[in-house]
């Protein structure tokens, strides 16, 4: 670079650099190379580096930003800025200099709002002043001073010896520490109640501005929120001892803390006061502080506002007052209401006399070992809700006031009394109360006195010591609470004191201590048996009720403990030594579970000689499937339901004296002693409705016993078992003529006599028909109602004989015909013809859509309410009266189509032409001769011509209808006109077959060189199957059978040895659709060694002749 190359661009760069250097030179005047600056007022040293500042705010700000730094004044500083500190941890070293805010607007010198600041002075006394102003006012010098230092709640300031301030202000929770020697020239005031909290172990002594003290002190426990302390210096004051004058410390102003006394001193050597008690503060952390007080009240006053043991950070947990032995103490009300503290007032054998009461509204107070007297009308101890009072070994000195209670439960506090004498107490039911000892002349309590006692305690007569039941207690009973020494156990619990036995050992299933039976709560399997883990008794009964399960070794105990709805399951065979009574139960179940209950009987219900009846209900089942047996007895009030699932569960003995016994299953064993009935109880009484007894001999079922034969006379001679079974009312005697079931005596509404002559009774006409209906005649035995649709389907052909009775049309069901079924309804004149003149079947008859049914009415005594036809099937009516009749409006059928030949519908005497009518009311079918026809219908009544007059040349002789031969009968004739359309003997069949060639593979041949013989394995025919198809073009069905006659031992088999191929679909005499079926053939045996003829398959064809029930009609 030379002058020639000095360009404009370079000039600009030089100017910029000059400006930067000029600005840098200004900074350099502050930040010299060694950290010194001209006119420096302070310097900050941090981590060995010192930087000087020409203004204090910057220096303090730099120190605030540098943890552990020290800002040191280098000169006296007068500034108009209030310096705020919000954080950091640093030291301000006044260095013997003065820092003063001279601004009347900013006023304060240093405000510490956060962080931790130590103010010290290392080189003589350092001063920090807020704004000070002094003026003359009419010859009087006046001044105002403003804070040198303010310490806020979140700040920590430590001021050391050598520092002087004009004013110091501390927030209520400020962390302020003042070392002895600190001088405050004008005022130290605080937001807190006193300045005592900032001067722990120290005090303030008056002095001049230079710290020269005079013998005056400032009381620390005064309020200095506004009051001036004046010029003071901080001094050490670790103890008031030696400074107490008239009970008050002349240094700190606090009352004497008797710190110079011990717990054995009666007189405080400092204040001469009489010491009444020792107060010990304890924390959970182990800190303890022992203090002496002249009374309880000063002790409580000392605690006021204290949560921590002074000098520690440990919370006060327990405060124990212990009176000096032999000292009586008087007091007004004593209030213990610190919820977080447990107070103990140990009277230590002394007397406490109260003009008021000890009040408890929160926390816990224990008072013990002394005498308490109170003049308060409510008594010595008044407990409020939330307070807990414990009294031990207290004697309440009754002053004779009748309304004076030793303990007064104001609104449900907690009271525990363990010993002592208390006169009258007033206790409420709310809150917790527990009396475990003590003597009382009166216990006023509105609840169950038993609730007051601790478990194991009882009330005893205060004089005689006799036991007093809790339910005999009243407010005037003088009692002593004593330990129960004579337990009366029930279920392991003493009924006197509530003591619960722990049952340490058992013998024979009972506790050796209290005699309570073992509850068998834990069981274990040992071999095939179940044992109690606790008492080792064998378990015989498992009781369940919902999810609750319990075990018993004694069935009597199990019965006694069983709640309603329980099931007792027998786990092993049991022989009862004594009768067990099932009583007071609305229903328990005994599950025999395949086991036997023998010996004495299990009795259901009971009655004593005076006729007092005890009810009991027992249901017996057998979950094992029929291996159980039991002996039972039913007495007055007893209800036995014997309901095992099968017939093999045995009643070995059944004695019935009264009550009710119903047998739904199982069996009564044979033998004259197995069933004994007394007091007019009959065998029929054992049967539930619809049940009958069947005889079983040697386990083989015999006949049902006729109901009329169930007489007690026959019991003695009975040797066979009796099995109750639900009667199906089937197979009634052929000469049955009654109205009740022969076997179970149930009243029938109808009977069904089937086509093969069997008779079954119906309890519910519709339901029983739908379950058991078959071809035959149903005859009504009484007026009835259809509980559901009575459906005739699946081709059933049945007669419904109304027999002069009525099927109520208002029932929910109706007759329902479908599926090619046929119902013929017949009637009979009623015995009360003036009431109902016909046998009304007031039911809908729906001809179901699942294949048409056919309705027939055989006489004029049958009347229908509403009849609906969705199809008429083969219905051809000659009789009947209809309140309403209607046809499916969507089908081409009319009411006249229902008519048989020679009939018509009449409404009264008027003939109604129903040719195009689908809905009509109140009509009767009566004879009518059709004379003229038009379009195949009678021109008068509309009935279709039945073509009964014969055909000539395919034309009806009556109506001229030309037959179209739509149906052909089994003889090949037209179903309508009988014209021979087909030769029924004509058979037309096609038979085709696949190539009938089969392969045979010879077995492997092996030469035996020793025996010189050739052995061969068996050969194999290929398993190809050849198909033979038969196609039938005949009118009739054809049966094809297949045979194979093999040559040289050849064998063959067919997939199907015979086929029946249905007849072809005919159009007139022409087959329009043939039917086919096929079989397969394969060679299965024999062997060949060359190509040869294997045999002959013969297909044998024969027509299948129509059956007797098949008219062979087929539609074209």
């Amino acid at each position, binding site marked *: 670079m030379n002058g020639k190359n000095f360009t404009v661009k370079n000039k600009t760069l030089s100017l910029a650099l000059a400006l930067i250097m000029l600005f840098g030179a200004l900074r350099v005047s502050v930040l010299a190379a060694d950290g010194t600056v001209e006119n420096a007022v302070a310097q900050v040293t941090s981590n060995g580096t010192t930087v000087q500042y020409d203004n204090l705010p910057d220096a303090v700000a730099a120190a605030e930003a540098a943890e552990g730094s020290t800002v040191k004044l280098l000169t006296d500083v007068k500034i108009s800025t209030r310096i705020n500190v919000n954080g950091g941890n640093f030291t301000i070293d006044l260095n013997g200099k003065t820092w003063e805010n001279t601004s009347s607007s900013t006023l304060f010198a240093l405000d510490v709002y956060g962080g931790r600041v130590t103010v010290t002075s290392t080189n003589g006394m350092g001063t920090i002043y807020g704004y000070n102003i002094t003026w003359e006012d009419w010859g009087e010098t006046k001044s105002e001073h403003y804070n040198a230092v303010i310490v806020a709640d979140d700040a920590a300031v430590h001021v050391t010896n050598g520092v002087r301030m004009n004013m110091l202000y501390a927030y209520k929770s400020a962390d302020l520490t003042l070392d002895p020697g600190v001088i405050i020239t004008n005022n130290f005031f605080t937001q807190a109640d006193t300045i005592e909290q900032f001067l722990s172990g120290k005090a303030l002594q008056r002095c001049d501005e230079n710290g020269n003290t005079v013998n005056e002190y400032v009381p620390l426990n005064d309020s200095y929120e506004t009051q001036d302390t004046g010029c003071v210096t901080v001094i050490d004051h670790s103890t008031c001892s030696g400074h107490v004058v008239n009970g008050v410390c002349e240094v700190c102003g606090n009352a004497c803390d008797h710190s110079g006394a011990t717990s054995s001193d009666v007189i405080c050597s400092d204040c001469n006061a009489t010491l009444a008690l020792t107060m010990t503060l304890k924390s959970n952390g182990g800190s303890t502080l022992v203090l002496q007080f002249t009374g309880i009240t000063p002790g409580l006053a000392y605690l006021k506002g204290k949560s921590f043991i002074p000098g520690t950070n440990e919370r006060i947990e327990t405060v124990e007052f212990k009176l000096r032995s032999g000292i009586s103490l008087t007091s007004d009300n004593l209030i213990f209401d610190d919820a977080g503290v447990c107070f103990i007032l140990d009277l230590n054998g002394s007397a406490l006399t109260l003009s008021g009461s000890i009040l408890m509204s929160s926390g816990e107070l224990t008072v013990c070992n002394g005498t308490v007297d109170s003049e308060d009308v409510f008594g010595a101890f008044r407990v409020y809700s939330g307070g807990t009072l414990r009294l031990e070994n207290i004697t309440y000195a009754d002053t004779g006031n009748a309304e004076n209670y030793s303990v007064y439960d104001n609104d449900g506090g907690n009271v525990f009394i363990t010993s002592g004498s208390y006169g009258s107490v007033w206790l409420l039911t709310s809150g917790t109360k527990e009396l475990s000892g003590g003597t009382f002349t009166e216990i006023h309590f509105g609840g169950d006195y038993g609730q007051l006692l601790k478990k194991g305690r009882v009330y005893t007569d205060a004089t005689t010591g006799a036991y007093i039941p809790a339910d005999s207690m009243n407010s005037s009973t003088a009692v002593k609470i004593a330990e129960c020494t004579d337990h009366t156990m029930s279920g392991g619990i003493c009924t006197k004191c509530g003591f619960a036995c722990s049952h340490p050992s058992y013998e024979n299933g009972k506790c050796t201590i209290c005699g309570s039976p073992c509850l068998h709560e834990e069981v274990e399997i040992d071999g095939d048996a179940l044992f109690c883990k606790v008492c080792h008794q064998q378990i015989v009964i498992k009781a369940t009720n919902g999810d609750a399960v319990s075990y018993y070794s004694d069935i009597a105990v199990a019965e006694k403990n069983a709640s309603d709805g329980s099931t007792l399951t027998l786990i092993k065979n049991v022989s009862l030594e004594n009768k067990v009574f099932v009583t007071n139960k609305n229903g328990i179940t005994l599950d025999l579970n395949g086991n036997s209950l023998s010996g004495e009987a299990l009795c259901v219900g009971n009655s004593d000689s005076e006729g007092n009846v005890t009810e009991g209900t027992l249901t017996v089942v057998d979950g094992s499937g029929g291996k159980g047996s039991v002996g039972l007895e039913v007495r007055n009030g007893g209800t036995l339901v014997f309901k095992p699932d099968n017939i093999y569960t045995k009643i070995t003995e059944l004695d019935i004296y009264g009550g009710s016994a119903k047998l739904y299953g199982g069996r009564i064993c044979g033998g004259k002693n197995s069933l004994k009935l007394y007091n007019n109880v009959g065998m029929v009484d054992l049967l539930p409705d619809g049940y009958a007894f069947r005889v079983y001999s040697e386990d083989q079922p015999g006949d049902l016993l006729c109901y009329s034969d169930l007489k007690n006379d026959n019991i003695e001679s009975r040797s066979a078992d009796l099995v109750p079974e639900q009667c199906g009312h089937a197979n009634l005697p052929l000469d049955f003529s009654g109205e009740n079931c022969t076997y179970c005596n149930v009243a029938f509404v109808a009977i069904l006599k089937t086509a093969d002559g069997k008779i079954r009774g119906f309890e519910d006409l519709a339901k029983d028909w739908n379950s058991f209906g078959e071809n035959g005649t149903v005859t009504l035995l009484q007026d009835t109602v259809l509980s559901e649709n009575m459906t005739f389907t699946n081709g059933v052909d049945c007669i419904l004989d109304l027999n002069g009775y009525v099927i109520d049309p208002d029932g929910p069901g109706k007759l329902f015909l479908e599926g090619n079924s046929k119902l013929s309804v017949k009637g009979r004149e009623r015995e009360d013809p003036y009431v109902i003149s016909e046998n009304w079947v007031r039911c809908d008859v729906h001809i179901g859509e699942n294949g048409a049914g056919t309705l027939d009415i055989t006489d004029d005594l049958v009347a229908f309410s509403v009849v609906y036809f969705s199809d008429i099937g083969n219905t051809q009516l000659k009789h009947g009266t209809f309140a309403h009749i209607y046809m499916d409006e969507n089908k081409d059928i009319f009411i006249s189509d229902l008519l048989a030949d020679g009939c018509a519908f009449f409404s009264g005497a008027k003939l109604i032409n129903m040719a195009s009518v689908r809905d009509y009311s109140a009509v009767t079918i009566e004879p009518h001769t059709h004379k003229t026809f038009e379009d195949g219908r009678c021109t008068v009544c509309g009935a279709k011509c039945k073509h009964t007059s014969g055909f000539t040349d395919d034309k009806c002789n009556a109506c001229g209808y030309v037959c179209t031969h739509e149906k052909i009968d089994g003889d090949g004739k037209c179903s309508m006109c009988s014209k021979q359309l087909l*030769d029924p*003997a*004509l*058979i*037309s*069949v*096609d*038979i*085709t*077959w*696949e*190539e*009938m*060639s089969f392969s045979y593979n010879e077995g492997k041949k092996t030469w035996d060189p020793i025996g010189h013989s050739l052995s061969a394995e068996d050969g194999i025919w290929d398993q190809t199957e*050849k*198909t*033979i198809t038969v196609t039938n073009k005949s009118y009739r069905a054809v049966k094809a059978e297949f045979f194979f006659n093999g040559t040289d031992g050849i064998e063959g088999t067919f997939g199907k040895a015979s086929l029946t191929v249905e007849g072809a679909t005919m159009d007139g005499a022409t087959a329009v659709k043939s039917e086919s079926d096929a079989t397969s053939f394969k060679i299965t045996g024999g062997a060949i060694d060359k190509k040869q*003829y*294997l*045999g*002959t*398959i*013969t*297909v*044998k*064809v*024969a*027509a299948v002749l129509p059956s007797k029930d098949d008219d062979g009609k087929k539609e074209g």
Partner: protein
Amino acid sequence: MSNTNTEEKKDKKRKILIIILIVGIILCLAVAIWALFFRDTNDRLAPDYAPGVSESNATPVDGDGSKLDVPDGGGGISIEYVSSVTVDLSDNKASFEYTHPAKSTQNIVLQIVVKDTVIAQSGLIAPGNKLKELPLLKGAAKKLSAGTYTDAQFKILSYDPESGEKAMVDTVAQITVTVQE
């Protein structure tokens, strides 16, 4: 004298034996000749190959020209018949209705069998022919008596029209034979 008598007796015995032998030989020959030439066995065996003579009583029937749908190498016959057959002993023939439709793929021989006895058998019938009568086999009439036989069949033997080999599948159709004198 005694020797002469003894010789004479021996001669007589020889003559008697010779006569007996001659008579026996004649009887044997007679039986053999009857058995070979005159005995009617009644068992008409199905020929393994189609007979060379067509049935003279068969008359053609019309067909629609179609054939049965038969698998390759297989065969098929269509049979149409009336299951009642009448035998008139007076003119020694059976009358019936049997059609061997043209759609069949096999030639057939029709037998009428009564109680396992063939009473009539046709010659070869090609597809498309109808047969209404057959003469009774010789001697058949003597085994029948007036009345109705339900144990009777048409036995239809099928033959390959080209090779003449008998098919493996025969058909038997149940019929009723009414015999009239």
